[in-house]
């Protein structure tokens, strides 16, 4: 069936199974590969996108649920890669392998949109579902705080 998706401000009509997770539609039907597959079970957060401004795991979000709603992926977070979180991430050299980082940033962006000056505990709670095997956690905290204007560096 045809599903209308609004991704990063653009409308798409997809002929796809409404049960297909949004993750695969983004990656394999729309070519938006910045949303990563890490587990497929909402355990790792690598596929985090925004659905009407709220962070969701694309791997367990059926396409049918996203239909007609605003989807934002890492590719659409900012026109030039200079969202305050992206800038803080580069400045503090947060990424190691980088695979989880888009999901981390999308999760943090939803947090800051709802809570512009989160406490450490709020940052920890919001990003608890986003795994990083390389162990960039202390820099992630510092970068979120830097983007929020509540902290300097690591």
């Amino acid at each position: 069936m045809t599903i209308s998706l609004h991704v990063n401000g653009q409308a798409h009509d997809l002929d796809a199974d409404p049960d297909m997770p949004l993750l695969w539609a983004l990656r394999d039907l729309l070519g938006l590969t910045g949303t990563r597959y890490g587990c497929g079970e909402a355990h790792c957060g690598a596929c985090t996108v925004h659905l009407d401004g709220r962070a969701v795991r694309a791997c367990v979000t059926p396409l049918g649920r996203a239909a007609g709603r605003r989807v934002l992926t890492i590719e659409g977070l900012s026109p030039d890669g200079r969202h305050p979180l992206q800038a803080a991430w580069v400045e503090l050299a947060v990424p190691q392998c980088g695979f989880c980082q888009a999901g981390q940033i999308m999760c943090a962006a939803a947090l800051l949109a709802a809570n512009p000056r989160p406490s450490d505990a709020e940052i920890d709670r919001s990003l608890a579902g986003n795994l990083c095997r390389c162990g960039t956690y202390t820099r992630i905290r510092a970068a979120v705080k830097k983007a929020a204007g509540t902290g300097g560096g690591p």
Partner: protein
Amino acid sequence: MTRDLSRRGFLAGLGLAAGGLAIGVRGGRAFLIADARAAPGDAALAPNPFVHVAPDGTVTIVCHRSEMGQGVRSTLPALIGEELGADPSRIRVVQAVGDRRYGDQNTDGSTTMRRGHYEELRTAGATARVLLVAAAARRLRVREATLVARDHAVHHAASKRSIGFGALVAAAARLPVPPPGKVTLRPVAELTRLAGDLPLLDAPAHVDGSAVFAADVRLPGMLTAVIARPPVLGGTVATLDDRAARAVPGVRDVLRLPAPSGPPRFQPLGGVAVLADHPWAALRGRAALAITWDHGAHAGWNAAADRAALAAAVAAPGKVVRAVGELDRALAGADRVVRADYHVPYLAHAPMEPPAAVARVDGGRCEVWACTQNPQSGRAEVARALGLDERDVTVHVTLLGGGFGRKSKPDFLAEAALLARAAGAPVRVQWTRDDDLRHGYYHSSCAQHLAAGLDARGKVVGWLHRTAFPSIATTFAPGVTHGGDGELAQGILDLALDVPAVRCEVGAATAHARIGWLRSVHNINHGFAIGSFIDELAAATGRDPRELWLELVGPPRLVTPADAGVASNPNYGESLDRHPVDAGRLRDVIERVTARADWSAARARGRALGLAAHRSFVAYVGVVVSVVHDRSRRGPPVRADEVWITIDAGRVVNRDRVRSQMEGAVIFGLGLALHGEITARDGQIEQASFRDYPLLRLPEAPRAIHVEIVDSDRPPAGVGEPGVPPVAPALCNAVFALTGTRVRALPLARASLPAAPMAMPAPT
């Protein structure tokens, strides 16, 4: 690509135009690539680090190592570029395909800056500089010594004349390459960019999502495959009903993979692949397969019995691998003997990016794109699987979403190649998370028994260390019963120990799964047992653990194999002249890290600190962990709230990436210590998701990780792995300080810890 070292072939393969200055280095000897045609066709003499200066001045640096988070794609161009005197904005980095002409490309064993590579990389840049300077000297009719290469040009200060690199390459490429020893490296102080933090080349692509990992590669007509692999190693398909799978919309084919033969090596595991238009259809198709399996020889493997067998192997004398003095007499004559048994479970790599590879087979040639740590072994395995000559296989290296040793095993590349040939279309093989956890190359489980004889004053007079673990060699050869020297040299043969009687033994162990190397390898096991036992001895004798560590390591000295009582020390492939076992450096990191953590005063204030130190990959690392009670989450009621880590890795190139590797090593070490455990039931791995194989999460990460990098002019040592081994014992020692409970078996999540704080013993 062919074995021909002709300029056109080599450069065209890298997308480089002819007409530039192309320099390779191998074995300390620099080549103009144009000259390399005259070099013997022996791959061992082929260029390794590689730099190219184009007539327009663009400098291309070939990154022949895989980027998996260690920052190699940022470090290599900075190091070579600084030697050259290049403007960083005019350097581009090209990722090399797998090709023996680059020398060793296996991004593993923390080797990129050691084993002489550091000098080779600098020599590549320096040789290009020397030739450009020589060309400028002829053009300007001045002596070479009056010229300086910097900012992408050669400058003559006296006449205020400068010539850009690009304008010099044609002339420079006609000059003879200086022989080995005649290329002078710049004084380190001149490599000014290396003194600060280098920018991270791929960071912008990581934060905007444009970074390309293996699963992001797209080929026209590509199908996606997911594979149902035998649940037990060596199992085979007994019956298959694929009708339901084939009925799933989007599924194009169901194919059987060949069963492997002999030792596992890097062969695909076999099983049944579902090929589809996209991953969702492939996943649904796989779920619809009805397969019965012949489980084969390992179906009786169970975790409890496996653990008991390892424990039994160290309960009795094993094969002696290290002996100094007369241990039996020392223990018999000791005032008291302290004994302890330790257990480390099997572990999985669990990189965030599960293995993935894309392959295209076309007219007897195969091209693969993969997140591989070792494109050469990938090329060899694909060639073997397809029955092709390696020359007809090209392996492209994408970014790796973590490696940790898993991705130096190229079974998944061969899967993609076999399926692409069978399907007659390009195929992407996507491993799922449960595939990754259930079909890995597991870190060895290990049982260890340690015993120490103490004299009346609490001094250690005898040291017994027994270890037993399934050897990595079991993955590659039949009949392997014991860990080998290269494995035992990871913390046992090379431990600096100032004890008059020492005996180390290895017991027999059987493998029932593919055993592989995981970041830091056996050092995780041995570092845990040794680091914990020293703390136990301190507690048993009422001494400060720091004081006992220093006493056992002994005075600053170089420990030869003869001193250590071993036949030889493989020493991570390094000579002992260049990288001796240096007790002084181990002492130094212990002293430094405890000073940074304010060890004595903080303990006196009641802070629960744990200390451990370990030499691995010829680097020295000391760690102090502070733990606090924390019952805010499920899991262990303790949390590491602050960690100090000091590394002496000799000279370092990219300080920020060394720092980030230490931060990552702390998280990796805490994660495995708290949660890591792979178990088997009836031959099948029981863990299949991050729910049952948890990694450390952000709320569990320390508030702060304080990294100290020792300033050193010594030869570069490993960095990626050495930070991990001391973390688990330091954590468990801190838990003991906090709770009085000694954790001898990992993971800590399985230990029963007291919920309430106990009174701190008075510091001694």
